[in-house]
């Protein structure tokens, strides 16, 4: 069918009118074939302009529309919705930018005019090749799989579970609670006790919309946002494989601790050198004592154990050691307490007050450079350290180490299963460290808590609730998912199955159909960047709305 393209030039008040000879433009363009008419209007984005446009489209019934006005970043949306209101497919319209990148840049009116004509011609030739694109809708399942039953996993599950949303909570171990359950009290300021954790555990266990699977592991995951299938291996009374369908997945697999024994400078097997977690256990059992059963007279809390080796600060240790200091002053007040720190990392508003408080309770804080040496001295523990280059030593009954946080076991395997990347440090990597801190490149797969990197409890909780927020916002029960329209599309006859596109797609939107021997784009995931298009040697991928012929038309006109 022959094309009848309608062209509108916006005067944008004086902005375009004064700097571009619109009459000349109209004259030159009208002669171009396939152009049905060219009209001008004072200000198309104004309400009058929009009304005018809507009526025009209905009246003139053009096959395609070109509007020469401002930058698409300003009003493409505006005009597209006008098209929609007029019952005209918005993808058969092209906005040509003759303001920002023409009228406003080129002082000479003649030059500006001819540039504008070039751009409009390009738009006309391009729009002729546009196809009417339609929004798709994809069914989606609101249920969620949460991997890991620590505080992050619990918080996520509890925030998500509801009458129209089922949560499957999968935990490797036999019981829920993770690391935080091992603490004798949560890290203050408020010094909350762990009953809050056990309360959350009970709540999860008794929640009618949370399906808790302990001693279980996820062994396989396929699918995409709104439509995942997961297989879970359960080792409870009987061993079974359970298959579930969910719309989103949250990884909350937490962390493990650095083992100081691996480095002799941390005392190796010296008596009475213990980790903070070991102290928690003693505290829980009510008897904090030395190897020989005597109570300690003096202890040293040592921060940043393993920081040098790992190359990052584990965030929580400073406040954690301060907590232990408080514990001694409050419960074993006759023990003399020293805290050796490299840098006090107190990034949260009430951390410092908590530190000041400990100082008031005469906890001694000593600034020590990273490389402390812990050794035996008689039956006591000697710590040799430097402060701003000056060497000192300290002898105590007991040294308590605050080790760095490491990625949990199985992190790499899980990452591979989910096809999400890991960070240099071995923790999960966020899709955008700054703007999208709990999401991964794979839409519908989120990470919360220490699986993303070392953090303290409040941060883990925030992140858990954040994943909940993102899921609640994107997977509304009963609502369908409306994916990007301008996506990539495989031309089967051209695809040779070299899978180059798979390697360059950051979002895992392309998969390989072994039967047909070609690549397949999942439109639910594709963001339309076109990286695959640029990479395909066979030219087998078309990016809708930015096809080679469309862009090539623009080139030709630019060079005419």
């Amino acid at each position, binding site marked *: 069918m022959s094309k009848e393209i309608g062209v509108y030039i916006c005067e944008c008040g004086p902005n375009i009118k004064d700097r571009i000879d619109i009459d000349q433009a109209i004259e030159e363009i009208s002669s171009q074939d396939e152009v049905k008419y060219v009209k001008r209007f004072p200000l198309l984005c104004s309400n009058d302009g929009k009304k005018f446009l809507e009526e025009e489209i209905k009246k003139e019934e053009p096959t395609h529309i070109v509007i020469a006005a401002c930058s698409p970043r300003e009003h493409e949306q505006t005009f597209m919705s006008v098209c929609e209101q007029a019952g005209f497919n918005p993808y058969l319209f092209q906005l040509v930018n003759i303001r920002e990148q023409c009228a406003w840049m080129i002082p000479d009116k003649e030059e500006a005019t001819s540039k504008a004509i070039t751009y409009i011609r390009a738009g006309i030739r391009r729009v002729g090749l546009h196809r009417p694109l339609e929004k798709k809708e994809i069914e989606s399942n609101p249920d969620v799989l949460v991997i890991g039953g620590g505080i992050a996993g619990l918080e996520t599950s509890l925030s998500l579970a509801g009458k129209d949303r089922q949560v499957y909570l999968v935990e490797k171990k036999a019981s829920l609670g993770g690391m935080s359950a091992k603490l004798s009290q949560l890290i203050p300021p408020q010094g909350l006790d762990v009953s809050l954790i056990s309360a959350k555990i009970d709540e999860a266990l008794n929640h009618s919309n949370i399906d808790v699977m302990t001693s279980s592991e996820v062994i396989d995951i396929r699918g995409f946002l709104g439509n995942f299938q997961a297989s879970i291996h359960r080792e409870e009374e009987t061993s079974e494989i359970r298959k579930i369908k969910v719309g989103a997945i949250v990884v909350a697999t937490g962390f493990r601790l650095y083992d100081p024994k691996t480095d002799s400078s941390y005392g190796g097997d010296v008596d009475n050198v213990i980790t903070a977690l070991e102290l928690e256990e003693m505290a829980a059992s009510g008897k904090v004592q030395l190897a020989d059963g005597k109570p300690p007279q003096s202890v040293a809390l040592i921060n940043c154990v393993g920081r040098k080796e790992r190359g990052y600060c584990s965030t929580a240790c400073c406040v954690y050691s301060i907590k232990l200091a408080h514990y001694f002053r409050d419960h074993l007040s006759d023990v003399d307490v020293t805290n050796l720190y490299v840098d006090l990392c107190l990034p949260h508003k009430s951390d410092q007050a908590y530190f000041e408080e400990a100082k008031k309770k005469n906890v001694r804080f000593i600034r020590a450079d990273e490389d402390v040496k812990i050794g035996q001295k008689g039956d006591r523990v000697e710590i040799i350290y430097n402060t701003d280059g000056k060497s000192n030593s300290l002898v105590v009954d007991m040294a308590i180490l605050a080790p760095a946080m490491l990625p949990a076991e199985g992190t790499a395997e899980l990452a591979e299963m989910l096809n999400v990347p890991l960070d240099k440090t071995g923790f999960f990597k966020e899709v955008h460290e700054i703007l999208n801190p709990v999401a991964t490149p794979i839409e519908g797969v989120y990470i919360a808590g220490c699986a993303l990197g070392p953090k303290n409890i409040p941060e883990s909780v925030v992140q858990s609730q954040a994943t909940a927020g993102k899921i609640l916002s994107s997977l509304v029960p009963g609502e369908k998912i409306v994916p990007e329209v301008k996506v990539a599309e495989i031309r089967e*006859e051209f695809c*040779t199955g*070299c*899978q*180059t596109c798979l390697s360059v797609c950051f979002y895992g939107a392309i998969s390989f159909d072994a039967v047909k021997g070609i690549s397949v784009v999942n439109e639910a995931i594709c963001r339309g960047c076109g990286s695959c298009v640029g990479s395909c*040697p*066979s*030219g087998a991928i078309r990016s809708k709305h930015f096809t*080679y012929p469309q862009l090539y038309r623009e080139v030709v006109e630019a060079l005419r």
Partner: protein
Amino acid sequence: MESEKNKIDSKGATGVVVPADGDQNKTIISLLKQFLEKKYLDAILIPSKIPDTESYTWLLVHEESLLDSANPLPPVMTVQGGRALSTLTEHGELEGTIAVLMRPCEIRAAVELSKLKQIDLDNFTFFSIDCPGAVPLSDYMNDPQEMTKIFEQPLDKWGESESLRPVCQICDQFSLYCLVPSSDHSQSGENEDEMPVPDLHIGLIGEHDKVFLTPVTPKGKDLLEKVDLTVQESMENWESEIDRIREIKRKKRTDFHKEWDTKIKGADNLVTVFDECINCHNCMNACPVCYCQQCYFDSQFMRLTPDDYMERSKKRGALRFPLDTMFFHLGRMSHMALSCVSCGACEDACPMSIPVAQVFTAVGDQAQAYFRYVPGRAKGEVLPLQTYQEDEFGEVETPKEEAEMSSVEEKDNV
């Protein structure tokens, strides 16, 4: 770059030296026959002479008696082995254990194709063979007997022959060690990805009446042991000869670059080189690493509207037919220059005897060096355009980072 690319020390290999009493081919064939008879292999893909003709083709041989017509090292390369292999496996894997006997450049092409998911290497057992090169297809068809004679001569004075295809004359990857990535190929077994692809290499250089068999992978070792070839002998003669010849060839290659750089530089020169091109795209069809189902340059997306052609003709004063010759060759280059193994198939295929292979080799070598990439070296390597590093190729950006800084500094100084 060139020298680094092939920096491989071939000393200290052990293998099996088989007496060949004059005819190395016979010896190889009889070995292969044993493999088939004893069912250690189900089939062998091998170049063979078409009965009652002078031309060669690939045969997938099951019946050992048919190996008599086979020729492990034919004087010509009719169909590039890599391409033959990819067509075989285009629609799924082959049943059974299948061996392939190919020239080094053909194996390297196969490796590139495997990176492009066109061949599954694990599906095959690879026999590579010392290759003196091949004679130009056209010359051969003009006078088969004569060319066969000529072809057999250079086996003595490898590297010197002027009758071989030009890219063969400068080929410095004609034997096993040229493929082995690590300087110590005995170590290279530890990393699957670093493994040279041939399982068993057949050496011909050094002594006429011997064949040097080097088991490269456990697969190859196992095969030899099955036919009771376990004798560990020194391969020194073979090795030293390879080194000698490689030196000669490498020098030729350097000279080649000197010569060709001037021949192709500049639009006029390049156009002159391709002047006779008739756009038959045979080069593309013969090229093993041009693997596309349908070449984009043959597609309707390359066709333009009449007024576009008029426009272009106006601009240029005239429009040359066939259209887009240079666009095609440059486009093809940008697609496969990094994977070009300089096998020469394109040049053999060109009806207008345009030195396509030499142009692509001249460009390919430099482009590959720029990306520190050696096509076909090892299966584990990722194709350069399928990966990236965060900090690289700063020199292609404008303004250059350094430049920007200094300019800012000046401004600050003022």
